[in-house]
């Protein structure tokens, strides 16, 4: 047998073995999103993942390999994502820090692969004319809070700054839509929420913003991120990598100042107004707000969130960030796109 024949045989064997080892692509990737648009519409705004969805980034990227992307937007937010995840309904989840930590603490086996937002602006809206002008005025008042979402952790921190705890308020557990209606009808005195909800209430004269996270650079804001179930990541390593790479590729579009206005317009599909997105985010450094990095800053945000969740008795067991956060996919994504994570803030 000549060397050439041997070489061809070896090449054939190698390619056959590689094909045998290569991933059989998933038929679908089920994505659970802890948010929904106005009136329960399946569109969201205000986050990079909203842009990914609106631009059909994943649908286009996975079309060639025949993988369908199934989005599930949940008005029940983080608690709804956790319920679905524990019933094996999602491969990929997007949610805020507290429900993420609760899920992980309860044993949901996920890998945290990319950050999707930090230092968001939490706001407190109070009914006008009832004497609530600051956080400390909330003592004894009927206040709506969507428990189990990242708002609960932020609320606890904001209250602690004012020397209050949940017990000092008459807290009512309400989802976003219910709280919105309840403050309009005067059934609650105030609510913890996000700018997309609070600004329209203010504009309609139904509420006044007594606390705005924008004023303290979102120090109590949620840390949002995307996780993949360990089962999915191990069964479909190539697809997991492709997912993270595509998320990063779109993130570059998302943080580009030239696309800011177009991005706001995409987000209005959620039913929230362009004007409010502008007011909330104009002037905000999107490279920082929407940084994908699982860097020291983001890890500190999560470590503090874990400590606070334990301190406020929102979780029973602590979570180890080092075994949860998996930067390998993001690092490879940077490499595939010819970028260096260290340069993220330099551009």
């Amino acid at each position, binding site marked *: 047998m000549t060397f050439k024949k041997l070489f061809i045989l070896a090449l054939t064997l190698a390619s056959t073995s590689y094909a045998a080892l290569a991933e059989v692509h998933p038929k679908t990737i089920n994505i659970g999103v802890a948010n*929904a*648009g106005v009136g*329960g*519409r*399946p569109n969201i705004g205000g986050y990079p993942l909203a842009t990914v969805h609106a631009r059909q980034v994943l649908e286009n990227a996975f079309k060639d390999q025949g993988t369908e992307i199934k989005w*599930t*937007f*949940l*008005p*029940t937010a*983080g*608690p*709804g*994502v*956790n*319920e*679905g995840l*524990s*019933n094996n*309904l999602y491969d990929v989840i997007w949610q805020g820090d*507290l*429900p993420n930590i*609760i*899920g992980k*603490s*309860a*044993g*949901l086996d996920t890998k945290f692969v990319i950050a999707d937002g930090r230092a968001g602006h939490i706001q407190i809206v109070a009914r006008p004319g009832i004497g609530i002008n600051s956080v400390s005025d909330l003592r004894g008042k*009927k206040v709506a809070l969507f*428990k*189990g979402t990242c708002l*609960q952790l932020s609320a606890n921190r904001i209250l602690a700054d004012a020397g209050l705890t949940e017990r000092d308020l008459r807290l*009512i*557990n309400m989802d976003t839509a219910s709280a919105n209606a309840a403050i309009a009808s005067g*059934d609650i005195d105030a609510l913890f929420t996000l700018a997309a909800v609070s600004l329209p209430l203010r504009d309609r004269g139904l509420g006044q913003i007594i606390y705005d996270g924008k004023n303290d650079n979102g120090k109590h804001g949620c840390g949002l991120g995307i996780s993949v179930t360990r089962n999915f990541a191990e069964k479909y390593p190539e697809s997991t990598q492709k997912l993270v790479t595509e998320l990063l590729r779109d993130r570059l579009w998302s943080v580009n100042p030239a696309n800011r206005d177009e991005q706001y317009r995409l987000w209005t599909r959620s039913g929230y107004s362009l004007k409010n997105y502008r007011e909330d985010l104009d002037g905000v450094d999107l490279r920082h707000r929407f940084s994908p990095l699982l860097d020291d800053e983001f890890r500190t945000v999560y470590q503090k969130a874990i400590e606070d969740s334990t301190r406020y008795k*929102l*979780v*029973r067991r602590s979570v180890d960030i080092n075994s949860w956060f998996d930067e390998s996919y993001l690092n490879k994504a940077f490499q595939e796109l010819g970028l260096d994570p260290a340069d993220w803030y330099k551009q």
Partner: protein
Amino acid sequence: MFSNYLKVLPAALACGYASVAFSQPLSLEALNERLERLESHTATYDDVNGIQQSLESYKWEQQRQYELRTVQTSRPLQVYGAVQTRLYWSDTDTTSGSVYKRDSSSDVSFTLLGISGNLYRDYEEGRNLNFRLSYGASPQAGAPNLSVLDAILTYELLPTLDREKGRLNISLGQRVLPFGLEVSASEELKPVIRGAQFSTGLGLTQRQTGVYLSGDAFPFVDHGFAYRAPLLAWDIGIINGTGTNKTDDNGKKDLVGRLQFIAPVDNYTSLWRELKIGVSGYKGSNNLSGTNGVYGYGDFSRYGLDFSYNHNPIDLTIEYVKGKDERVTDSVNNTSQEFDTESTVVTLFFNKGQQFVRSFRGQAKYDDWWPKTYQPFIRWDNYKSESYNSNTQQKEQSTRTVSTLGFNYFFAQSSKVQLNLNHVNDDSKPANKRTSNEVLAQIQFGF
């Protein structure tokens, strides 16, 4: 608003022109171009009037639709209902009463139409006054004609806004008996087309009128999964015991109660989640009638022990019920005897799908979306009862066992197709008719 803009516009243009003129002179052509560009992006009086007219037309249309085409109520209402249509076939025909050699049938086995809502909503603490009213027809319950099923007012005695506190409510009216799993459990724990034999055999499916006290205590709430599970849940009722929509027929009241223990868990993902053990009791009196009319009371009792593990995707329910009834055996001499009943029902089922994941069911969607679920199951239903043989003047015991292999397909949020294969072994029947096989197919749709 826009008129103000229009008033300001010339001034702004003038200022703009002035500042531009001082900094960099522009040609008249360039200024005209700017003005044209500005005008193409500015709303005119006509534009504003157009929007105003459209808005007025919309408001008028909405008002008209509301007055003419919208059902109105004095209180917030929820309308609900269900219909079951069934096909039945057996390899053994039945002859009894007016029935001759029946081996198959198609039935509307159950219909329900109801409304529920609140008469008073307490925004402060959630001590609401709620009502529920429903009508239905169910040949199974011996009431083929439309009758009142639920007609009940419920007042929350304790605040309900805080999910971390226990609940207590009082109800007055007619409702399902709080007894065991088969009678009072929700759809999630009842995959079989026909109810367990004891539920009809012991008269437990009949709604009863009276006063009920229900509550739970020591709840565990996992906000991270929107899950609430009390450690104890209980119901007590003082009732007529005469059945659906009937005035009491004697001076004695019946007492029914149920206590359920729910395994404590430290989070939603715990393997012990939704593991429950319950005990139930129902004690009362029926009138005894002889040929000369009613002559006294006969006591009866039912006691039950149940276990359920409703942990998606696996569900297991086990229920044991024991009953004792005093019945007339000689209507001429007004004598009676006690008759015993004993039953055990075991059901194991498996869910593949999203029907019972609440958050998934309530997801944001534009279209009319149906979560699909496939639910195979098996059931073993053993029912031992005593009857009186007037020829031998002796009590006789018989055992009827129904083994069911079934499959449910949930194709919409509240609708399902069901298929049951029953193997029946009834030792009260003649030897050649002791065993029989049945096929039941049913579509249940609800809203």
